[in-house]
């Protein structure tokens, strides 16, 4: 499955502290001509790879600002450009829910979208509308969006970005957020440090591990109640059930699977690469999708999977979970792709300080070619 993180706009009505996109202050909206050409290229790609599928993720910015007409036009374009492959394109959407209306929801449904990915914040002044980041106004609109989606039979899942304030009472926060959406528990992601301007809220590796560690015993006890709370469920499935399915950052196989396409046609390895402005590939106007997906600059990701187990990750029993972490983080940290991610520090602390002592389960997921467990 090829994953396209598609940002027809990077405009947003919100002003969240930890968002890298909003700081770009981009107002461009992709025009129909370019949109048409992208689906044409997807069609060519899918015709060449008849067993391949595309996960086309509408991302932003806030996609709702595109309006229903944009999505309806996109629907028409897909069916014109991809007459025999449209059913191998799965549309997904990421939205802050605050500007959704019935027309947009109808357009989503037409595209076959059944679930909306979103984010939510407990503490005030972090996610919000306007200059002052009005969280109450944001949250009210968020719930209106949720209600509209649910009334239309759409489900929603969300990410929580762990920041300095989250450390005050991790368990209370966990309970609040899991109460908020009983169908789908959140993914607790570490806050990224995009430009260090707001670094009072950025947490370090130790703090993130401690945050997760504070919740882990409770989660283990009530695993059946919160089966989808991530990353706990990911660790559990990988270590106990031997179904390794960590997030993309920890799988080491994103090489030719992901691509970001921005409003002006610029491309990069993935959504975060697009936000950071790194690991860029040719503009979609100047290359086929295949050329971008298999671009030679991506080889560093595969190479890293071969070199790391011989070097920085040598004999690490956690290799099978983390695979050296995300290449983007490694690059941002050392300005070179070949290193392990600095997130290695929280993974190690979480496993050795919390997981192993609490569960009594030792993690021995060595690289099978360099070390036998």
């Amino acid at each position, binding site marked *: 499955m090829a994953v396209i993180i598609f940002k027809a706009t990077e405009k947003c009505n919100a002003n969240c502290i930890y968002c890298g996109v909003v700081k770009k202050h981009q107002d461009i909206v992709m025009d129909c001509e370019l949109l048409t050409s992208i689906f044409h290229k997807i069609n060519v790609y899918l015709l060449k790879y008849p067993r391949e599928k595309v996960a086309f993720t509408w991302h932003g910015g806030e996609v709702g600002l595109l309006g229903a007409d944009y999505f309806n036009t996109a629907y028409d374009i897909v069916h014109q450009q991809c007459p025999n492959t449209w059913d191998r394109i799965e549309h997904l959407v990421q939205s802050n829910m605050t500007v959704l209306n019935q027309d947009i929801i109808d357009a989503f449904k037409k595209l076959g979208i059944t679930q909306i990915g979103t984010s939510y914040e407990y503490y005030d002044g972090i996610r919000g509308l306007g200059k002052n980041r009005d969280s109450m106004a944001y949250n009210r609109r968020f719930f209106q969006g949720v209600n509209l989606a649910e009334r239309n039979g759409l489900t929603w899942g969300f990410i929580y970005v762990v920041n300095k304030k989250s450390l005050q009472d991790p368990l209370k926060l966990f*309970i609040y957020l899991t*109460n*908020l959406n*009983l*169908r789908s528990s959140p993914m607790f992601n570490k806050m990224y440090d995009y430009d260090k301007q707001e670094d009072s809220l950025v947490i370090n590796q130790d703090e993130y591990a401690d945050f997760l560690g504070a919740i882990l015993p409770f989660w283990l006890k009530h695993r059946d109640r919160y089966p989808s709370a991530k990353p706990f469920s990911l660790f559990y499935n990988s270590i106990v059930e031997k179904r390794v399915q960590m997030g993309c950052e920890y799988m080491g196989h994103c090489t030719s699977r992901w691509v970001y396409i921005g409003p002006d046609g610029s491309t990069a390895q993935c959504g975060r690469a697009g936000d950071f402005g790194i690991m860029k590939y040719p503009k979609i106007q100047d290359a086929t999708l295949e050329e971008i997906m298999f671009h030679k600059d991506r080889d560093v990701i595969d190479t890293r999977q071969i070199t790391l187990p011989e070097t920085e990750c040598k004999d690490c029993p956690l290799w099978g979970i983390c695979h050296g972490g995300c290449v983007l983080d490694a690059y941002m940290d050392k300005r070179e792709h070949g290193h392990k991610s600095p997130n290695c520090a929280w993974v190690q602390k979480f496993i050795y300080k919390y997981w192993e002592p609490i569960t009594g389960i030792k993690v021995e997921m060595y690289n099978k070619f360099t070390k036998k467990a």
Partner: protein
Amino acid sequence: MKNNRQTLVTRFEEKLIAKLENENIIITTDNFNFINKYYDVVNKQNKLNNITVYYDGALTSIRFLETWKHIPLVLYVNSIGSHRMFFHLMPILRQMNVRIFLSNQTPQNFVDLQIMASLGICSGIYFSTTKMDWNKFADLQTYAIYSKNKHAAVEPFNFILSNYKRESRLDFNTVYYNDPQKFLHLNAEGQIALNADDLKAGKFVLENISLIDSLPDNQDYIKETTKWQQHFLDKTHCAECLAWRICLGKFVETIDDQKSCANTMTELLDGVEHHQQRLQNQQNNQNQQKNRR
């Protein structure tokens, strides 16, 4: 009967009942004199779900008639009354299709609910005061969920036990007909309110039943069915409570320093999950045995 439609809760109004067709109906009353008539009239072109009698007195002061035996009855009474008289009532109560609710007003009622359940009478607690004896509530809950002795259902524990799903909020107000997704309240003219309080206050959302298809888009209905979200906007104790999913803040007015409600309701949640797990394990074992055969 109309599928997936709310059950209609109304006082008996012959003209109104005659206008309804194929509806599931609960008749509420405070009068025992016309029980048989209600049953016959409602069942002509609708289905009587039950007759609910709100009676300001003791159970033992009700004169139960043989002719009620086939009629589903729900009784809200203050207490059971004298135990001696209650035991005299047992033979006829056992033949009735009845569920008896006692208020949380007195500690004795909690004990009496347990007695009734152990004698095979379906029963339940209703909340008429915010002064809750949480110890007594917890005792009753433990009995309702864990007792190995055969006993009849006790509400709202039975409802929670039978309907809990970990992926959705469970509103046990359903037991008391205060859930507009399941029950609507009609006045004599057929105007529709979302719950008993609104009915009393004359706050109606629809003028009559023919407009029911517009209910999902009705702003008051949306507000009522999403009012739980205010807890999250306000970050109340309830939004941070482990038992949220089965309580939804019903005891918010009773919250004390010991968080008695949260502790008791969390025990209930644990008990319910434990019960479901046990059932699941039994089912798995049976399946395994079947497969082996």
